[in-house]
């Protein structure tokens, strides 16, 4: 069983100045795998995704894509940023945003051709947003904004999809669309990694969960990873009630004793 990993890190660490955001993370991500990246705010989830995407240089350790060292962003790795990082009052239409996913492919002096636009509309159809193609993005709801980002990602047609908090602040139909999309992309052999601080989503729509808090705490199937001990190590005791229906006194005492 030594098939090549699609994406892997070895002893990956990322520092910002004197502050360490990630330490000694070694993971492997295989084709056709959907991985939930779980941890509290500030745990380094976004940092790990950016390092995987080749956007942040590792302070130590390496990232490899299909065995080759990642030094800069690669078209095979599609990155979907958080919705909140974007100015939604910007004067561009839904179709304009989706076409930004074609930036690498078009020729400089010609505009986008009819084929580019058809592909963009097809991507919008896959997320149920084709009838909004001409709408200015400021008029969209949170879920619709997320769908536009997904359409842009689909248009890029990579082998790996890295999504930063795709479930945050979106409506239930969009959550279901995301789960369905992960399923289909997984069946097409794509690797999906998405960051979330929502434990319920992570256990429902991941083949595997990576629990992080500045270092890798646990990795494995959701049921095996989301144990009281692991979650306490990652979240510091506060999130346990959310996943354990019957709060065992021992856990409460344990958490209390730790403080």
């Amino acid at each position, binding site marked *: 069983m030594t098939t090549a990993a699609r994406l892997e890190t070895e002893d990956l660490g990322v520092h910002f*100045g004197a502050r360490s955001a990630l330490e000694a993370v070694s993971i492997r991500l295989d084709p056709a795998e959907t991985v939930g990246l779980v941890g509290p705010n500030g745990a380094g989830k976004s940092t790990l995704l950016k390092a995987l*995407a080749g*956007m942040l240089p590792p302070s130590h350790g390496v990232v490899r894509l299909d065995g080759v060292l990642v030094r*800069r*962003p690669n*078209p095979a790795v599609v*990155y979907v*940023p*958080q919705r909140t*990082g*974007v*100015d939604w009052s*910007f*004067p*561009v*239409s839904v*179709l*304009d*945003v989706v*076409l*930004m996913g074609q*930036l*690498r492919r*078009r020729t*400089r*002096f010609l*505009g*986008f*051709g*009819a084929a*580019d*636009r058809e592909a963009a*509309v097809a991507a919008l159809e896959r997320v149920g947003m*084709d*009838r909004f*193609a*001409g*709408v*200015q993005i*400021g*008029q969209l709801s949170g879920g619709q904004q997320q769908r536009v980002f997904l359409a*842009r990602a689909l248009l890029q047609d990579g082998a790996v999809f890295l999504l930063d908090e795709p479930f945050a602040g979106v409506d239930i139909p969009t959550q279901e669309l995301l789960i369905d999309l992960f399923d289909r992309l997984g069946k097409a052999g794509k690797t999906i990694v998405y960051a979330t601080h929502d434990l319920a989503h992570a256990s429902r729509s991941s083949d595997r969960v990576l629990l992080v808090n500045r270092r890798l705490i646990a990795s494995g199937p959701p049921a095996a990873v989301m144990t009281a001990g692991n979650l306490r190590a990652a979240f510091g005791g506060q999130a346990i009630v959310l996943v354990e229906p019957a709060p065992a006194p021992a856990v409460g005492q344990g958490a209390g004793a730790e403080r």
Partner: protein
Amino acid sequence: MTDWLLDPLARPFMQHAFVAIVLVGAICGAIGTFVTLRGLAFMGDALAHAIFPGVVIAYVLGGNFLVGALIAAVLVSLGIGAISQNGRLTNDTAIGVLFAGGFALGIALISAQRTYTKDLASFLLGSILGVSRQDLLLTGAVGLVVLVTMAVFRRELTLVAFDRTFAQASGLNLWAFDQLFLLLLSLAIVVSLQTVGNVLVLAMLVTPAATARLLTDRLRVMTALSALIGAGSGVIGLYVSYHAGIASGASVVLVATGVFGLAFLFAPRTGAVTSRLARRLHFAHPERDVFAAEPTPGDRSLPAG
């Protein structure tokens, strides 16, 4: 009325002035689109002031003021980048430090000249009536460079302005495109100095673009409209200046500000007055609401690439 329009055009210095203000209005209007969308108004103002010593040094040495200004602009934009790399200071602090420092250096240098007051006034407020044919050619050439570069890199400039994280993930070099943008901005400012002056160039960068944003939701339309409003305000402002005998730079800026005021009040859909009217009419015409009605398949509006 015909006399009012034609009289100024008979004078050669006014002909030059009209060509200059149209060029400057269009160049600043176009690049101003990105200045407003990226929230870089303070940066634009700072660049205009910080390149001042470069202009003065060129003037004192008898060199080309454009070269002096450009060298100063590149130094200042690199300096701002370097200072904000230090994690303790924010970008606008860095801008503030270099803005004031550069401007003071310019004043110090020019105050050593004998014709101090007159020189300072013409730098700060512009001297549009003294524009020569050679100045016009230079302004036109620089303007062409700015507009062509903007057109060639429009997608990159747009993506960097809209979504920096995704731009970086797409393999764009953010630093390089930021510097390119600042260089274009510096060029636009430099060719505007003679026409509208150091102090008021900010208005040409921000006001027409802000007006255009109120009138459209499309970046391309906004850029064209902003250039048009800039040039148009320039022409009307010059006429007003000629006939009312007021300073030309101030007159141009006041016209641009007036146009902004009109758009703010009466822009279709978004105007302060018009949107109130529209709300009243909403129940009479619910079909105009894009989300209320189910668009037909033929309804899909695809902008031309």
